[in-house]
């Protein structure tokens, strides 16, 4: 036999050995074992995985880390920043290796991460006073199945933005926008006056953005995504009413039909260039609308809480983030200390310019309010009641199904009832 064949059989033998050892080792195929990390002492280095591009900037966090390390000299903190798009997959990939102790999580992940044992249960660590001192909607960010898997760090919801100029031209005031019916009436006036062709623009592209918009309308009609047993119920009452309402605004010519291809960036830019009169968007949009290098409507933008529907409720969609502890972390005590510090009211108030605060008291402090008065005024009350998206372990698949079916209805391919029935059937099956 020649050497190449010999080396190939050597490789094969090695492979068999490797697989045999894997199977015989008794570990699961992922190599994970049932050990779930440890508390660790007050010392050590903790690795923190955070999101960049939005919320607290890297320099903000660097300051927080410096202050924290000064107060806790035995703990060292190493931070890593990744884009939001890469965050989920990075948490999943790094889980078996236990690379990170603290991870930044989105509100839609606790169900998945908790059931797959990726993050640790923090309920026992939660001080009781948090339940009264934190804004109600924000508190639920890390919650799943009655337990807490993350500490809220930066609440976020969609607010309602309007062009003050266009409103004034048709004699409307922000008060008229407190209900969705009122919004439609003003929109019709703006359209009839010929100010813009489509007064409303939404982010109804086949993406998570669509579910966020739909969630706020679902809440306005008094509905929720799931019932107490965790099954999707959007094909009943409010779920279908919200969708029918959305479709009607397109049919009536009030909503830009291109909305079904828009993401938040598109509605933001559409409003900034003066093509849209009113939109739903995240808090950070206000900054763009006031930025002269981007916007042509500087000083003309107004912001308020999302309008109420027939039910009188107006919860915003919960788009907050939280800090969780990786279940395989060996330094859970130190990690908790870090989380406690950076999520505290004092620290959040200090960096209020970058991100909103989760604490009720912050919204009463004049110096905090002064940093961003319009947005804080709107956001403060908005965070108290937020509607969560369905807390299901396979949320990603459910969201995809919902996006497809909602789009089917918006594009007129199915009736809203049919679309929601199909969505519920597909989701509750899986």
């Amino acid at each position, binding site marked *: 036999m020649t*050497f190449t064949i010999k080396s190939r059989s050597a490789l094969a033998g090695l492979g068999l050995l490797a697989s045999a050892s894997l199977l015989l080792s008794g570990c699961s195929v992922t190599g994970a074992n049932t050990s779930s990390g440890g508390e660790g002492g007050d010392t050590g280095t903790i690795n923190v995985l955070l999101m960049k591009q939005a919320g607290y900037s890297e320099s903000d966090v660097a300051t927080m880390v410096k202050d924290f390390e000064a107060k806790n000299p035995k703990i060292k903190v190493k931070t890593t920043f990744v884009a939001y798009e890469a965050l989920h997959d990075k948490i999943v990939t790094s889980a078996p290796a236990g690379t990170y102790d603290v991870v930044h999580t989105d509100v839609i992940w606790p169900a998945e991460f908790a059931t797959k044992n990726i993050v640790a249960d923090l309920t026992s660590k939660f001080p009781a006073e948090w339940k009264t001192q934190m804004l109600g909607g924000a508190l639920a960010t890390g919650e799943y199945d009655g337990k807490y898997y993350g500490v809220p760090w930066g609440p976020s919801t969609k607010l309602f933005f309007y062009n003050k100029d266009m409103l004034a031209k048709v004699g409307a005031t922000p008060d008229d926008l407190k209900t969705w019916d009122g919004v439609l009436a003003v929109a019709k006036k703006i359209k009839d006056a010929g100010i813009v062709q489509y007064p409303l623009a939404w982010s109804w592209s086949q993406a998570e953005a669509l579910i966020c918009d739909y969630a706020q309308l679902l809440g306005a009609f008094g509905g929720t995504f799931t019932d107490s047993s965790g099954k999707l119920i959007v094909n009943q009452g409010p779920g279908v009413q919200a969708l029918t309402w959305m479709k009607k605004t397109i049919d009536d010519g009030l909503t830009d039909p291109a909305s079904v291809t828009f993401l938040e960036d598109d509605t933001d*830019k559409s409003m900034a260039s003066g093509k849209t009169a009113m939109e739903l968007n995240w808090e950070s949009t206000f900054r763009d609308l006031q930025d002269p290098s981007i916007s042509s409507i500087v000083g003309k933008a107004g912001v308020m809480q999302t309008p109420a529907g027939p039910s009188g409720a107006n919860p915003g969609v919960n788009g907050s983030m939280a800090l969780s502890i990786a279940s*395989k972390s060996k330094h859970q005590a130190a990690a908790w200390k870090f989380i406690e510090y950076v999520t505290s009211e004092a620290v959040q108030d200090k960096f209020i310019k970058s991100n909103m605060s989760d604490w009720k008291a912050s919204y009463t402090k004049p110096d905090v309010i002064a940093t961003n008065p319009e947005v804080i005024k709107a956001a403060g009350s908005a965070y108290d009641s937020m509607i969560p998206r369905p807390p299901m372990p396979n949320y990603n698949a459910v969201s995809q199904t919902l996006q497809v079916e909602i*789009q089917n209805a918006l594009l007129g391919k199915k009736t809203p009832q049919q679309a929601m029935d199909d969505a519920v059937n597909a989701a509750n099956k899986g």
Partner: protein
Amino acid sequence: MSVASVESAPTRSPERPVRKRKREKQGRLAFWLLLPAGAAVFGVIVYPIIRTLIISFFKVDSALATDTPFVGLDNYVHVLTSASFWSSMGRTLYFTLVSTALELVLGLIVAGLLNAKLRARWLFRAIVIIPWAIPTIVNAAMWKGIFNAQYGAFNALLSQLGIIQHYQAWLGDPFTALNMVIIADVWKNTSLVAFFLLAGLTSIPGELYESAKMDRASWPRIFRSIVLPMLVPSISIVLVLRTVEAFKVFDIIYAMTRGGPVNGTQTVAYFAYTTAFSDQNFGVGSALSYLIVLVILALTAVYLRLLRRSEMSLL
């Protein structure tokens, strides 16, 4: 380092042992020369290949799953019976066939131009290199901007030329988005294909053209009976390369559309990625990866059979 064993070697003539010894020495030298390359490639990937293969036979639904029952071929069956697999396979086939065909045809034309007598030929060749050199992520970001529904250059151009009335969302409709991704892919890879084909073109001896012209053959005739047959080796290399790449395509999908809208640009490799990482279904994701390999192997075999080359190595 052992000596090659001589199994059935009846010593018939004195030359035999000499030739065998020579081959032994060559074999030994070859082993050592190839060991670094083998280590660099297989030292890195053999363990992952085997591990992923093993995972594909288990039910693994979390990155930290501790209970992973053996399910045999269940994951493979699950994939082969899932509608999303077949639709993503269909999309991938469409993507592969259309982009490869376009790249081949356009590449041939560009190769011809690269080969032609041009003034400032060096400048033209330098320009054609650009799409090949641009990183895939940059290319994807560029085309994503061009096709942007709000402010993209494509919309601006078409509306200013009066071809369209309203700005379109080119990446907003599933099928259109797939075609736009194909355009981005073709723009980048045609130049690579062109250079490969150019290499083949330059090795066609000039005498063949001369004798054809003396026979007063027309250009289409020359192309069909001289150029094309002599380009078969280059074309077969390009076909195999581009097909494999198209089937594995991931980066451009990730950066341009993330598989959307409604999975309209979700190719099999991207589907494997979302199955494994977004749904945390690693067993099925691994099975999917190996099915992709099988399809690639099958396609390659078909190509090589069609072009009557029994090996793509040492062509």
